[in-house]
Each structure stands twice: as structure tokens, then as C-alpha cells.
């Protein structure tokens, strides 16, 4: 199936759906009349709502597809998407903050505020990666940190001001409905201009398929080119996000679908990526309008896009050729190495020991701050401290393994999709069995994570669990489940709030048995990881070299993936998904000078534990009597440190 067939197929479905939604709205009028001189209710509705919405879905889909193709080409990473540089997190934070500060803002300056937030986030990312020449790894790391940091700030604000912010949920999932032509008129010229700009850059950008030295040798001005291409995609993403909200999946899936459908060269991807994005969003949005007639206007288009894009991606995945992608560009930075690794590890253990004391003993209540030495509160405190420690260590180790096996710095345990699988199972139980006890919830979550892992392994078995297949399959599964979760939470069901707290990573509800389970898991799974350390040293050298020295690469990947799944599932079920720890603790440990697998694993586990115990302590005391979810606070305290390290790199 070529990309043209895919576009035509999806386009045909979209046309049929559009015809149906059009006849339902136009009430006997004519389309031509509605376009030129609308008269009568039906034609007016079509002119001011249906038509602009149609065009907005084309424009947004094309814009995101284009931005995604550019982003993936510059960052040399199939996980890169238009929102990688923190654009949507920045917009969300700005909207949340503005809505809280000026409640009347809702309708008026929304777009301007979102645009400003996106701009601030992207500018921050550019400034952080600037002195590394905008090298892919530096941009990706800075983007991830800024994204997570702004996301956590936004989520914290939402969590404490739920009642004011209900409408933002729908925006957060992407809603395309229109009342006039203003968005079309603003997006249209922008998309066209960006397309022209991208077309002008097509030759130098295509040369990025060579390695860095090769591209530079051919006279490509790397820094200028990266800046220009990233700027174009940031502008596109920011425009879309501010106009219709987060439709993140299209930007990631459209380039991947184009590649899988056979767009081999960058030029072909640049043409087909936006087209596929446009028809995908068109189809999803028309389906939303048909469904809206049945279920009310609450299904967000963004969520539905993932619902249909993911299976398409999974279906095409076996076509992903192994090793067709050029070797990734070498790390842009010389990684530091600790001069005394053992000493540094011991210092980290000591720091953890010191931190655990206030975590257990320090109190902040109506009477102010106090150290409780009687031990009366210990009974309630130790489970959550232990759970924080265990979850932090587990997810940091899982992240380290994932990044080493896939050789991808953007990989985290979450991209394997099982966190989303657990969340979906959890919400099904919360909805279907109201009043289910915690044990049932945990069992459901475990089942969800388990089934997702089995699905992931089944989908990628033929590709010998090759990194890019695993990542794409995990992303597609995760997006699929996330879409279902978003569809449920966006409906405003009060039970969804429980889930929201869990999704933010909370230690507040942890009991002693779960904490002990976590401890056992850290010891057992951590010990299970030790024998794999040599694989983890060899696999980053590539499948050829690892295979040549006798590693059964397929089996090694399988066992390591299963281990990662076990670690992630355990930690996630105890305290919820902790994006920051799983994604960035491994980077923190590397930047602290632990490049070899075993010290890297240990250091990452310690960093994860330190960040989580610290976050638990602060989350409990900082704004007493309220609590900040540990996972959020972990990001809020960990991200600035990582930003500082990135600057010094």
C-alpha cells in the first residue's frame, strides 16, 4: 500500500462521513448556496460552523503532520512530535494560569495566551540547547524537561482548582468546533507559508539523513538549518494548539504512517506526512460529528484521532524495515565520567539515609513545624516514604533499561504503553464496580499492564523486538488507551477525579502492604537486573556488535522488556505513573558521570529514590494542610536541577 492509497482510502471514508454530516445539517439547502450566500438556518449552520470546521480539520492535520515530519527529521528520532519542545505544555500552563488570574478571560484572549505560553516554552528550550548547536540530544532533553516541568505546574494548578477549570479538559483533548471563519483565515496562510518554507529547506534537510559530519561536509549549515526547521514546526504546533488544543497524536503518527506506507525519502515524507495528517484528522473529526449526534458534543476529536490512528499504525508496523534508519547521530556532548564512582554512589546512599529521617519525622501542622521523635506518627509515615522510595527506584531502573535497550533518549517506561493500559483497566473498574476496594483496583491495573505487555511483545515478535518497532508499537498502544481514558475523564464524571490524582502520582493512599510489596520488588527486580548488566553494556553498541560477541539479541531484548514491564507495573500500581523519574532519572545519573550499565542502574535508582522521598516530604509539608501529589512535586523539584545540569553540559 503506497501513501497515496492510504490518503485516498482515508479520504474516501471522510468524504462519506462528511456527506452524511452535511445532509444532516443543511436541511434542504444547497452546499453552493451555503458557501456563497447562505440563507436559511441550515445553510447558515453549514456556512459558519460545518465548513470552517472542515477546513480547520484539514489545516490542523496538515500543520501537525508537517511539523511532525520536520521535527523527526531534525531530531533524528521517531518519538519526536510537534509538542516535543514543550509547546502544548506551555500553552496549557499559560491558559490555566490566565484562567485563574482573570476568570473572565475564557472566550476573549484564549488564543493569545496559549500562543504566549507556547512561545515561552519553545524559547526556553532553544536557549537551553543553543550552545550545543541545537544538537538533537540537547534539544530533545531540554524539550522533555521543559515539557514535563510546565506540564507539572499546570497539573498542580488544575488539581487545586478543579471546579474553575472544567472547560479546559475539553480543550486539553482537542476540540475543533468553530463558530466563524477566523481560525481558518489565521491558520490557512500560516500553513501555506510553513509549507513553502519547508519546501525551500527540503534539500539540506534531506542531507540530515547522513551523519552529522557528512551533512556538514556537504556544506549544510547545521545550526541555522536546525533552528529554521524547528522554528517552523514550533510555530505550526503553537498555532494549532492555541486554536484547537492538543491533538498531539497526529503529529507523531502522520510521519510514522507516511514512512510505513512507503514514503522512503524525506521529500516524500514532507509531501505525504501533512496529507495523511489532514485526512486522518478530517476522518476523525467527521466521525466525532456523527457520534456527537448520538452522544452529545463531548467526544474530543484529539482523543478519537488516536483511537483510529493507533490501530492503523499497529497494522502497518510489520512493514517497518529493520535497520533502514541511518545510524543515529553521535552524542553531541562528551559524557562526563565520575572520578570516584564508588564514592559518589556511597554519597548518594548517605544522602538518601539523611533525607529519610525528616521524611519520617518532620511534621508541619497547625502548630507549625516540629520534629516528632516519639514515633507516634511513624506508623502512618513509613508506608508512604517507603512506597515513594521504592517506586522512584523501580521506575528509574526501568527507564534506564528502556533507554539502553532502545538506544533512544526519549524512551521512558511509559512509551511502552503499559502505564496507559493500567490506567484504562483502573478506570474501567472504577466505573463498572463503584466502591471496589483498593485490592481490586490494583488487580485490575496489574491485569491491564500485563495484557498491554503481552500485546506489545506479540506485535513486535517478528521484528525481533527491534527498538523502533517496540517504541512505535508502545506509543500506538499507549495513545489508544490514553484516548479512551481522556474520553472518559473529559466527560466530567466525578469519579474521574480519583483517577486524576492517581495519574499525578500520589503516595497519600498507600498502605503498609503495598509499601512492603514495593520494597520486595525493588530488591528482587533490582537483583534480577544485575545479571543483565553486561547485556545493557553491549546492546547500545548495536545489534551487529552485540550479536557478534555472542549476545542472543532477540532473547536479551525480550527478557529486558519483561523486566522493565514488571518494574513499571509494580511502581505504577503503587503510586501511579511518574513520568519524570522514569524518563529523566536515567539522564541525571548519566550526566552525573555513570556511563556503564551497572553503576548507571544503581545511580539512577538512587536518584529516583532521592527525588521521590524528597518530593514526598515536601508534598506533605509544604502547603499544609493540603498535599501535593508526589509525582508532580518530583517533577517540580527535579526538573530545575536537570535544567541547571543541561546548562553546564
Amino acid at each position, binding site marked *: 500500500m503506497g501513501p497515496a492509497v492510504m490518503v485516498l482510502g482515508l479520504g474516501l471514508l471522510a468524504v462519506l462521513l462528511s456527506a452524511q454530516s452535511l445532509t444532516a445539517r443543511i436541511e434542504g439547502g444547497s452546499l453552493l448556496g451555503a458557501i456563497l450566500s447562505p440563507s436559511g438556518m441550515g445553510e447558515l449552520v453549514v456556512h459558519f460552523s460545518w465548513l470552517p470546521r472542515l477546513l480547520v480539520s484539514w489545516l490542523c492535520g496538515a500543520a501537525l503532520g508537517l511539523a511532525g515530519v520536520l521535527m523527526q527529521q531534525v531530531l533524528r528520532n521517531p518519538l519526536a512530535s510537534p509538542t516535543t519542545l514543550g509547546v502544548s505544555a506551555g500553552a496549557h500552563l499559560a491558559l490555566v494560569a490566565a484562567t485563574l488570574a482573570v476568570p473572565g478571560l475564557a472566550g476573549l484572549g484564549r488564543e493569545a495566551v496559549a500562543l504566549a505560553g507556547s512561545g515561552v516554552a519553545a524559547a526556553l528550550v532553544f536557549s537551553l540547547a543553543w550552545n550545543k548547536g541545537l544538537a538533537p540530544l540537547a534539544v530533545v532533553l531540554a524539550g522533555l524537561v521543559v515539557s514535563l516541568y510546565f506540564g507539572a505546574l499546570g497539573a498542580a494548578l488544575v488539581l487545586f482548582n478543579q471546579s474553575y477549570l472544567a472547560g479546559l479538559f475539553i480543550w486539553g483533548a482537542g476540540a475543533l468546533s468553530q463558530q466563524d471563519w477566523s481560525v481558518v483565515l489565521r491558520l490557512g496562510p500560516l500553513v501555506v507559508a510553513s509549507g513553502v518554507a519547508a519546501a525551500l529547506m527540503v534539500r539540506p534537510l534531506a542531507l540530515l539523513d547522513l551523519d552529522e559530519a557528512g551533512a556538514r561536509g556537504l556544506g549544510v549549515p547545521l545550526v541555522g538549518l536546525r533552528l529554521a526547521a524547528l522554528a517552523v514546526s514550533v510555530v505550526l504546533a503553537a498555532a494549532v494548539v492555541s486554536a484547537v488544543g492538543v491533538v498531539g497524536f497526529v503529529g507523531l503518527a502522520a510521519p510514522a504512517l507516511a514512512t510505513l506506507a512507503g514514503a522512503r525519502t524525506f521529500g516524500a515524507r514532507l509531501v505525504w506526512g501533512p496529507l495523511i495528517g489532514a485526512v486522518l484528522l478530517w476522518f476523525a473529526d467527521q466521525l466525532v460529528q456523527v457520534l456527537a449526534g448520538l452522544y452529545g458534543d463531548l467526544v474530543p476529536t484529539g482523543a478519537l484521532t488516536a483511537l483510529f490512528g493507533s490501530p492503523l499504525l499497529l497494522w502497518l508496523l510489520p512493514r517497518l524495515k529493520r535497520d533502514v534508519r541511518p*545510524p543515529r547521530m*553521535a*552524542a553531541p556532548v*562528551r*559524557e562526563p*565520567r565520575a572520578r570516584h564512582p564508588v564514592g559518589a554512589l556511597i554519597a548518594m546512599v548517605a544522602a538518601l539515609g539523611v533525607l529519610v529521617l525528616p521524611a519520617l519525622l518532620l511534621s508541619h501542622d497547625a502548630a507549625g513545624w516540629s520534629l516528632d521523635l516519639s514515633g507516634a506518627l511513624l506508623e502512618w509515615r513509613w508506608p508512604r516514604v517507603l512506597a515513594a522510595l521504592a517506586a522512584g527506584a523501580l521506575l528509574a531502573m526501568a527507564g534506564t533499561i528502556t533507554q539502553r535497550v532502545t538506544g533512544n533518549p526519549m524512551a521512558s517506561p511509559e512509551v511502552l504503553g503499559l502505564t496507559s493500559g493500567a490506567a484504562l483497566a483502573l478506570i474501567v473498574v472504577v466505573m463498572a464496580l463503584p466502591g471496589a476496594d483498593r485490592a481490586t483496583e490494583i488487580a485490575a491495573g496489574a491485569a491491564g499492564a500485563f495484557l498491554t505487555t503481552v500485546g506489545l511483545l506479540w506485535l513486535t515478535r517478528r521484528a525481533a523486538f527491534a527498538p523502533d518497532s517496540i517504541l512505535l508499537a508502545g506509543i500506538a498502544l499507549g495513545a489508544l488507551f490514553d484516548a479512551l481514558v481522556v474520553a472518559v475523564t473529559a466527560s466530567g464524571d466525578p469519579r474521574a477525579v480519583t483517577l486524576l490524582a492517581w495519574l499525578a502520582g500520589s503516595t497519600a493512599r498507600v498502605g503498609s502492604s503495598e509499601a512492603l510489596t514495593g520494597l520486595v520488588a525493588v530488591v528482587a527486580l533490582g537483583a534480577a537486573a544485575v*545479571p*543483565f548488566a*553486561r*547485556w545493557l*553494556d*553491549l546492546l*547500545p*553498541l*548495536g545489534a*551487529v*556488535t552485540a*550479536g*557478534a*560477541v*555472542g*549476545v*542472543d539479541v532477540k532473547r536479551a531484548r525480550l527478557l529486558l522488556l519483561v523486566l522493565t514491564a514488571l518494574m513499571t507495573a509494580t511502581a505504577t500500581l503503587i503510586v501511579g505513573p511518574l513520568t519524570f523519574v522514569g524518563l529523566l532519572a536515567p539522564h541525571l545519573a548519566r550526566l552525573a558521570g555513570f*556511563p*556503564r550499565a551497572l553503576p548507571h542502574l544503581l545511580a539512577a535508582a538512587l536518584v529516583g529514590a532521592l527525588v521521590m522521598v524528597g518530593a514526598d516530604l515536601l508534598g506533605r509539608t509544604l502547603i499544609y494542610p493540603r498535599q501535593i501529589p508526589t509525582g508532580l512535586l518530583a517533577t517540580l523539584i527535579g526538573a530545575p536541577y536537570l535544567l541547571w545540569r543541561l546548562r553546564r553540559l
Partner: protein
Amino acid sequence: MVSAAMEGFALDGVGFAAEGRTLLHEVSLTLAPGRVVGVVGHNGSGKSTLLKLLARQQAPSAGALRLDGRDLSSWSSRAFARMVAYLPQTPPSAGALKVRELVACGRYPWHGALGRRTARDRDAVEAALQLADVGAFADRLVETLSGGERQRVWLAMLVAQEARYLLLDEPIAALDVAHQVEVMALARQLGHARGLGVAVVLHDVNIAARYCDELVALRGGRLLKRGAPADVVTAEGLADIYGIPMAVMPHPDGGWPVSFVR
């Protein structure tokens, strides 16, 4: 014990096709230990493909490929790596590994994922560092070395692997002439003193004639000729291989053939 007749690689009508294009046609030959075999041929003649098949990096699409009488696919990963070491044409980036650490990776087939690193492993790494003449920068990061130095570090990793067969894909392409000679002398020493079977893909026919016991010439994916350097490096032979007129004269020092373009 493997009988002497079975020992070594045996290719029987081996072919390889990818995406509808046949890269190697019905190649039949044997490779025995204790000899250095040079693989020569024009670009795209299937030299690297042949080496990849021998290294089990790719499975043949036709024919039978055996090592010591056993089909290649029946070997376990580690047992195979104890027998065969392979250096790809472009070695990957070594990340943040130091030279000694990378060379120690070659010991994996012996200690495996769980086995203890013994004094034997350490000795093998040290010996490999000395043999490949990279001991002087054993504690530097691989990525900070020059291209030639890096090439020798990868070679040291293969030496540390202590396999019975070495498969080297253009190991001297990035080296100056002094290091070319050094690497080829090392390959020859490993072949003759340690009794390893060495297969080297080479572009330089003169280097091949000087250091190899035997040459295998490929053209268009077919085995063209196989024999002692003096039999393969002849004016007619080279014209067959490369398709341009060449001439050969005996080297003044040892009489091995030296070719030049006419």
C-alpha cells in the same frame, strides 16, 4: 572432537538475495584454520555479503553453510561467538566507553551474562591491548581517538574474543600504510602462530598478495577464482576481477606478485 576433514567453514552453493536482487550466487568453498584468506573483488562484488553470511549476521537464502560440520543456525549465540569474531566495515559509536572497557566486551562469549570475570579474562584483555598496540591509551574514551586508533581498538576487542576464526571487513581502509602493515602482520601472526582462520576483505591487491596465504576473488556475486596469491594476482586474473588492464611483476624482496595499473 571434530574430525580434521570437517573442521572450518564449508559453503555449499550458498546464495543471498535481498529485495529481489541476488547479491551472492551459489558460492562453494571452505575456510580452514591456520590460514589467512584475502577476499578481493570490485565494489559490489559480494565481499561484505560473504563475510556477513559467515558471521551469521545474515542468513543465506540458498545453499548450506556449515561450521565444523554443523549448520550455522544450529550454533548457540555464545558458542558461535567463541568460534567466530567479526569486525563490520563501519564499527558503531562506542558511546562513553573507555578503550579497556570496549576491549573487555570481547570477553562476553566466555563469561556470558552471569559468569565471573576471571584472571583469565583480564589477561586476555591485557594481551589483546598489547597485541593490537593500543595499551598506551587503554584508559582513554574510545570516541576521543583518531580513526586509525579506533580501528585498532576494535581489532583488539576481536583479539580478546579469542575466537577460532576472525572475519575482518576492510580492516585497513582507514589506516596509514604503517598501520596497514601492522594490522596485516597481526592478522598473519594470529593465523600462523595461533592457528586461527582469518578471512579479510581487502581492496588493496598488493597488501592482499603480500600477507594472505590464499585469495578468494569475487565478481558480480560469483566466485571467480581461488588460489595462492601468485595464481590469482596475474595480469589476466586482475583484468577478470576489475575489468581494467593491469600488469604484475615480482616484488624485488620476496618474489610475491606486485600489481599496477597499466
